[in-house]
């Protein structure tokens, strides 16, 4: 069954989500850089608790799509509806508050801060503490900080990282840094989380653990996951809907099985991959 279908025929989102509107929709999204069209005509629909994948060869424009979804780049064309509300003209920070969180291809942690503080920064908009309380350390400061700490530790514990809470984020091993980025994104209480190559640089056992974690994120938090990944076995096993990009355009959409058999995909992506192996 197709989880991600072209708009406007839309509508087919995971069965468990059918009675709700999709968390994220894009209509004919495109962006030009200096007259050059980098990405064009991207239309996606992602259900509330769907795990979907964005794949494609290097340079296909996958990260650019993420950057448009989070308004790091303002799209030249098309619309993005997050939980039914358009995100045009919003800042990255405002879009995050509307319910979209992300990780980065090249890890972007606050590397001089502790692991706990990284998560607390993620909790920023969940903490009720105004400037006055911040400066005086009174008027609700203690309560707010205690709650933030509890929540941060809870989230870290979810990825069995609670024992690293006081370590400096930059000193963590690579895999833990990737996990911390996910925790920090989850701390913002999003409706959908975008993961940019979460398995990059991981060994098979770490990748297996990551897959398990992504499923747990969906099941526990009840949110949607959209990921960019080059590890085909991860994508095929994990994702319910897949969108394939090549040269900035969607060349296929559908379930893993459909994607595997799509001749255009095989030519653009999997074919090469098979030859390489």
């Amino acid at each position, binding site marked *: 069954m197709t989880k991600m279908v072209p708009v406007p025929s839309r509508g087919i989102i995971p069965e468990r989500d059918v009675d709700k509107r999709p968390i994220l929709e894009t209509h004919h999204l495109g962006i030009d850089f200096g007259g050059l069209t980098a990405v064009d005509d991207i239309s996606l629909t992602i259900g509330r608790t769907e795990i979907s994948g964005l794949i494609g060869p290097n340079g296909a424009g996958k990260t650019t799509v993420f950057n448009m979804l989070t308004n*790091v780049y303002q799209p030249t064309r098309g619309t993005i509806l997050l939980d039914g509300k358009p995100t045009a003209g919003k800042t*990255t920070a405002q879009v995050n508050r509307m319910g979209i969180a992300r990780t980065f291809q090249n890890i972007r942690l606050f590397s001089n801060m502790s692991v706990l503080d990284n998560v607390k920064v993620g909790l*920023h908009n969940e903490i009720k503490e105004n400037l006055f309380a*911040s400066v005086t350390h009174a008027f609700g400061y203690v309560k707010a900080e205690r709650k933030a700490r509890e929540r941060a530790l809870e989230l870290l514990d979810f990825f069995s990282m609670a024992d690293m809470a006081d370590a400096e984020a930059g000193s963590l091993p690579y895999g833990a840094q990737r996990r911390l980025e996910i925790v920090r994104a989850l701390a913002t209480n999003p409706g959908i989380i975008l993961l940019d190559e979460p398995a990059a640089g991981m060994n098979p056992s770490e990748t297996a653990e990551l897959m398990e974690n992504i499923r747990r994120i969906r099941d526990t938090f009840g949110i949607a996951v959209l990921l960019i990944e080059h590890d085909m076995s991860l994508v095929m096993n994990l994702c319910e809907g897949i969108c394939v990009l090549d040269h900035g355009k969607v060349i296929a959409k559908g379930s893993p099985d459909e994607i595997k058999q799509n001749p255009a995909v095989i030519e653009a992506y999997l074919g090469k991959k098979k030859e390489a192996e």
Partner: protein
Amino acid sequence: MLKFKSLKKTTRTAVTSYGIILVAFAIMFPLQQFGLLSNAMAGQLVPICTYIVMAISLNLTVGVLGELSLGHAGFMSVGAFCGAITSSALQEVIPAAPLRLLVAIIIGGIFAGIAGLLVGIPVLRLRGDYLAIVTLAFGEIIRNIINCLYVGVDKRGLHISMKDIASLGMENGRVIINGPQGAVGITRISTFASGIVLILFTLFIVLNLMNSRTGRAITAIRDNRIAAESVGISITKYKLTAFITSSVLAGMAGALYAMNFSTVAAKKFDFNTSILILVFVVLGGMGNITGSIIATTILYMVPEILREFSDYRMLIYAIVLILVMLFTNSAKAKLFRERVFDFVLRRKKNEEEEGVKND
């Protein structure tokens, strides 16, 4: 000592910072009261307090927020002259000196904060070196404007002119700011104790801020702006918060400074002063508040100590500055230090192991 080390890092910083200031006060205050300090030394007490506040507040912008500001003395200037005007104008209304000082410092802080807001809103959109150049330009503009400013007070209130004293049109009034001469006829009401109180206040604000939701947001912007935005932190809001807090504190320091002298000219707060404060911050360590306090005290005293070498002192100061920067920052020096450190550690470890064997 072990117990101290087991404390949280933020608590440790707070204990050391407040501790240093209180101990310094406990030692210097009796000495000053019993007239045991040389005149030169006693005269330096309030300026040192002022520069400590300046360094801590600049550290908030440069070290914690990570934006280079080359115009911090500009905010000090705004505070100094607004404070001087307030104090002179209120001489009859508030006869009690400490209260008048307090009011002057608060007014100085408020106006410097407004200046910070006006500069900050447009400027904080710029990045890196451009922000530095605009803060530099702002500092020069303030200095230039105050150089042409004439303010006087009479029964009818304040009179302001950009031309000369005559155009103030006062009746038996008192001139407060006299163009290039700056603020004149200031009643010297700043005291060492008030300087210490202002430092403690600054520490309270800055240390609390650093260890809070707001402070984390500011540090996050410094560490990785894009990631901070991606978790919903409004960059402009927190940059402005840090920048304005820093300006307010600088303005307060300026007011305290002005009230320590009978006259203060605008050229006292020029580019070189901004640079001097930046040097204190960088040598004390970026984001390191205790470091700022220590570096300011030592570096402020060095030229005084070198006074015997009179002509050579600033030259020596320059050489020391370059050597310190080379030693603390060059790749080779870093390698050298690491080796020494390793060597010491290994010896310590060997000794410990031998100790165990001997047992």
